[in-house]
């Protein structure tokens, strides 16, 4: 997809004025965080598990070459194949190659954000292979020609009336006046449509939440079971995974799985956790005859050894999105690319460049909730600050902002001047603000006052009150 991250401000502005989106975001803000808190309260060991999970991921990152080689060796030993891909283009070509070799016309897909990252669907379609998304949310955004707005809840930006409208427009073989006012009914309709696709697909593509070095397995978690029908029924199973997903053993994966669902949806465990190892065995009566792992770098190895290395611990649970006031206000599409929320604000500039995505690290109030809920304790606010510094150093931020910061820095470095300016400003504002104590509009800060009042200072600054007090005593 063509990123629009550089337009974050305009995107966010549009999002704030979109009534459907705002209704949908209201539902999200009240759902996930409450469920997460309840699940964690039930597990006294949660924080200790977090520390263990972090240690596992750090250990893997420090020995990533060993674990990837071990993983590959064991995939091959089980009869599968690993395809190493440097970038999106190479991964797309590799997958198309596998489809062509199998003579595939349709592929079903389990939800995969890496597939969004490499824009796989458009590419397959342009080359005569029809991709069908099977996760309900992902299917909805596919038929609407949209992209997912949330890494685990792709259609969280929509209200049910919008889904119903898209179903009527797409499922034209059904009576146009059928009732579609309940999630239950729409889910049944999608189930019937997609069941036929599952049964006729030539290849199934899934992502991976974890890759296991010990056994050469891939793991996916879903609630719907779509990932299972996707990989079980067709002739071949392609796993598309970024390389930092590898973990040493089944035990290590089990520890991380205890953190994943609780952090994501507040479930104790996802409905389906599926461990897939190689193709079907000689005497199996079902399962795919071929198993391919497309192992993607696409900028990850460049994070090693730098200040964003800890981002490679991310297990894509979306807790940071679910708890972010900025994400909660504008939704995921405003971020303009695949990953949104705090993890997206850090990852996107790393993957598509700061020139395009330099705006995203500014989409933060620095409230720190993202870091506090992150099961991997990734210092997301610190990383966003680093990106802001880089953006400033590379003169990518707007001229007015740079001048403003330069003026502020000049004043802030001169304490007497700073005190004088702040005392004068608060004095003037308190006079102008008068008895009402707030401003409806103020020059230069319309972004603030358009939607709320600016409180007026009550009079003298803290520093001047302190000085007066010192003098009195």
């Amino acid at each position, binding site marked *: 997809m063509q990123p629009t991250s550089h337009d974050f401000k305009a995107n966010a502005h549009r999002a704030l004025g979109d009534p459907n989106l705002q209704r*949908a975001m209201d539902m*999200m803000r009240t*759902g996930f965080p409450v469920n997460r808190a309840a699940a964690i309260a039930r597990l006294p*060991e949660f924080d200790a*598990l977090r520390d263990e999970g972090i240690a596992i991921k750090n250990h893997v990152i420090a*020995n990533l*070459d*060993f674990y*990837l080689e*071990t993983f590959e060796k064991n995939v091959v030993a*089980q009869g599968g194949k690993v395809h190493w*891909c440097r970038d999106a283009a190479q991964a797309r070509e590799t997958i198309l190659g596998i489809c062509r070799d199998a003579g595939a016309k349709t592929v079903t897909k389990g939800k995969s954000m890496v597939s969004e990252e490499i824009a796989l669907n458009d590419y397959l379609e342009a080359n005569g292979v029809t991709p069908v998304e099977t996760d*309900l*949310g992902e299917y*909805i955004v596919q038929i609407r020609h949209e992209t997912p707005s949330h890494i685990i*809840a792709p259609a*969280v930006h929509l209200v049910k009336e919008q889904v119903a409208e898209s179903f009527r427009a797409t499922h034209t073989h059904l009576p146009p006046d059928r009732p579609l006012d309940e999630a*239950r009914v729409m*889910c049944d309709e999608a*189930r019937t449509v*997609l069941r036929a696709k599952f049964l006729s697909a030539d290849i199934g593509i899934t992502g991976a939440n974890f890759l296991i*070095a010990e056994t050469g*397995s891939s793991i996916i978690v879903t*609630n*719907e*079971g*779509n990932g*299972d029908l996707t990989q*079980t*029924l067709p002739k071949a199973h392609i796993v598309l995974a970024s390389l930092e997903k590898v973990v*040493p*053993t*089944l*035990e290590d994966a089990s520890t991380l*799985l205890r953190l994943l669902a609780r952090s994501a*949806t507040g*479930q*104790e*465990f*996802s*409905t*389906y*956790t*599926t*461990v*897939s*190892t190689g*193709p*079907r*065995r000689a*005497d*199996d*009566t079902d*399962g795919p005859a071929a198993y391919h792992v497309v192992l993607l*770098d696409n900028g990850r*190895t460049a994070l*090693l*050894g*730098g200040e964003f*290395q800890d981002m490679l611990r991310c297990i894509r649970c979306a807790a940071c999105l679910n708890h972010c006031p900025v994400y909660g206000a504008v939704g995921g599409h405003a971020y303009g690319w695949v990953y949104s929320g705090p993890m997206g604000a850090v990852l996107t500039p790393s993957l598509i460049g700061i020139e395009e995505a330099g705006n995203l690290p500014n989409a933060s109030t620095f409230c720190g909730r993202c870091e506090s809920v992150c099961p991997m304790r990734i210092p997301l606010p610190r990383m966003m600050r680093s990106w802001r510094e880089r953006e400033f150093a590379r003169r990518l931020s707007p001229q007015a902002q740079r001048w403003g910061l330069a003026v502020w820095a000049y004043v802030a470095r001169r304490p007497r001047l700073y005190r004088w300016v702040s005392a004068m400003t608060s004095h003037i504002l308190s006079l102008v603000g008068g008895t009402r104590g707030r401003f409806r509009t103020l020059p230069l800060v319309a972004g603030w006052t358009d939607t709320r009042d600016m409180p007026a200072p009550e009079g003298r600054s803290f520093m001047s009150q302190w000085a007066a007090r010192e003098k009195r005593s």
Partner: protein
Amino acid sequence: MSGTRDQILGSIRAGLGRGRLDVQAISALEDRVRTHRRNLIPARAAALDHQGQIDLFVAMAEEVHATFTRVTDVDAVPGAVADYLAGQNLPARLVMTPDPKLDDVPWDKAPLLDIHKGIAADDDAVGVTACHAAVAETGTLMLVSGPDSPTRNNFLPDTHIVVLRAGQVVASYEDGWDRLRAKGAMPRTVNFISGPSRTGDIEQRMVLGAHGPRRLHIVLIDDARA
């Protein structure tokens, strides 16, 4: 492709600021994989006795909308299945995996059940399978694929009935892995299943039966209690 592989491994080493790992380091890592040491296991299930684990399994699975019939004898299983299907107004025709773990169930005790053994088709409304283990910690069944246990039977039928023996209930996923390793090679597929299929993708309203089964019914043979 091997060029790409070397490039990627090269950038990993460059990023980490080191060359290839030395022999000692590699052997320590190989040991870590081979011994697959357990990490912290929550006390929730591990601290209970076996009967406590069975009760916890039932409570946790019911929380995620699995349903149960608890019987004390394998002879009662066919009746339990027949009663469940009748109670739900479901057809008595079912597809059953040819799993030897189901062989000692006297299916002829419920003559109204129309059982065919084999792989499930799209129009099979009810499926019966055995399982590998049941994890008390989160109410999670563990099923493995094999010649007698095709994976699709866990997903295609609208109603999935699992026959579980008390002795198969374990505390943790790790206990399940140990039992699997004891059996030998890794199967193609291991399915951890907690309740019936569901989605929250439309306005986060939970709907059961997204793509997999709408109902998950577990017949628990509680022979330890008998």
